[in-house]
């Protein structure tokens, strides 16, 4: 079985995480731009004399599908690398994958990723 690891991180940490993951031999990931808030809130901005709230902060979402065996190592690596110790560092969520297929070859399961 495979696991999906979904990490919401500070955008500028992406490069570092990518390299750290390459080193432990995990390849393949999908990323996207998201916005969010949690304990870290947005800030107040001012436009032409009127105040307004910017609630959502830019974050990057990383999605990695790995085999169950690799999952812990990948999670640990992300955790370590993404951490700055400051508020807003982000979260990691893990899900079960019930099927994985490589379109080009039709391979499934761990061979697909």
């Amino acid at each position: 079985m495979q696991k999906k690891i979904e990490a919401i991180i500070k955008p500028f940490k992406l490069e570092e995480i990518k390299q750290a993951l390459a080193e432990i031999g995990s390849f393949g990931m999908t990323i996207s731009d998201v916005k969010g808030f949690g304990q870290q809130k947005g800030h107040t901005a001012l436009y032409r004399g009127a105040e307004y709230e910017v609630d959502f902060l830019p974050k990057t979402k990383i999605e990695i599908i790995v085999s169950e065996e690799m999952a812990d190592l990948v999670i640990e690596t992300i955790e370590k690398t993404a951490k700055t110790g400051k508020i807003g560092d982000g979260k990691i969520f893990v899900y079960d994958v019930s099927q994985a297929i490589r379109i080009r070859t039709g391979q499934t399961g761990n061979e697909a990723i």
Partner: protein
Amino acid sequence: MEFSEEMKYVLDSFWLLISGCLVMWMAAGFAMLEAGLVRTKNTTAILTKNITLYSLACISYYYVGYNLMYGSGNSFVGSGVMMSGTSADGHSLISDFFFQVVFVATAASIVSGTVAERIKFWPFMGFILVLTAVIYPIQGHWSWGGTSLGGMLDGFSDFAGSTIVHSVGGWAGLAGVLLLGARKGKFGSDGVIYPIPGSNLPLATLGTFVLWLGWFGFNGGSQLALGSKADVDAISAVIANTNIAACAGALAAMILTQLLYKRVDLTMVLNGALSGLVAITAGPDYPSMNLAIFIGAIGGILVVFAIQFFDKFKIDDPVGALSVHLVNGIWGTLAVGIFKPDVALFAQIKGIVVIGIFTFFSSLLVWAVLKFSVGIRVSEEEEYNGIDVDEFGLQAYPEFVERQGV
């Protein structure tokens, strides 16, 4: 024609043509400024309006407006005979027409900014038709047309149109806004103001620079002659004063926003520069540069407070056109009364009021007729989705991903 006379004719006409080209360029400036200060979803609409209103203004002013303004007629309105002949006294008639027509387009552009992001296209064009063919020319007939409205405007002095062009555009826009209402989501209950940031500040900055450049023709050309030492000296003063008033307006807004908001607000700096330009326009010829700096700086200060003032009264003016053109058109006209030796402040006030009342109420009437016949505002859903998609079927930046309510 004697040689020296001919040279003067050539240079005077030529200067009108060059100035006219510069003023025509202001149409691009308005288009860019307004496109930069509205939201992406209404950008195609504002671009379309700006290019078509310029086109319509030129044609309607040719067929009707120019003669209502400069035709003999009576003291209220000109003759209405179509422009004819080729040379006027001392310069080419057509060069004069070309220079004048780009002015009327400027007045019309001001309106488009004020009513942006919620007006329906065709009623807007209808209003522009009336404004450029009738309203603007009639009040122009009194001042630049020389009739003084039967003496009422005696002594009124407006070199390049702080009142005649800019505040006329502002009054026409204000009348529209009052009948149109604010954009959805701009004003919350209990007086909260939700800012709606402009979508493309480089475009807005470009537009400001374009207007700034064009203004050298707007004010410089209003000398209406170039071919003598006196004329070129005057034009030099006009252009240098125009430039430095804009600088002063920008810097004043820069400093004031830093003091008020603890940050320099670029959109206010842009509006500040434009305010300096509008303010100096009524009299760029007489002041020293010191005074031009003062007049421009007051313009830059006024615009910041005016924008907050209009917001407070829930008069929603997406690009700040009222604060720039109406408020500073008035300020600039008053300044001539205060500072120019041979001009009476009272004559200036009378001019501002008479022209203001005429323009505001005639505009209000036209807007009201449009509102209660075909309607002037897009539907709520259209406004939410953006006029571009619903009315024009064309996004301004179709490939760029936009933030949706984020």
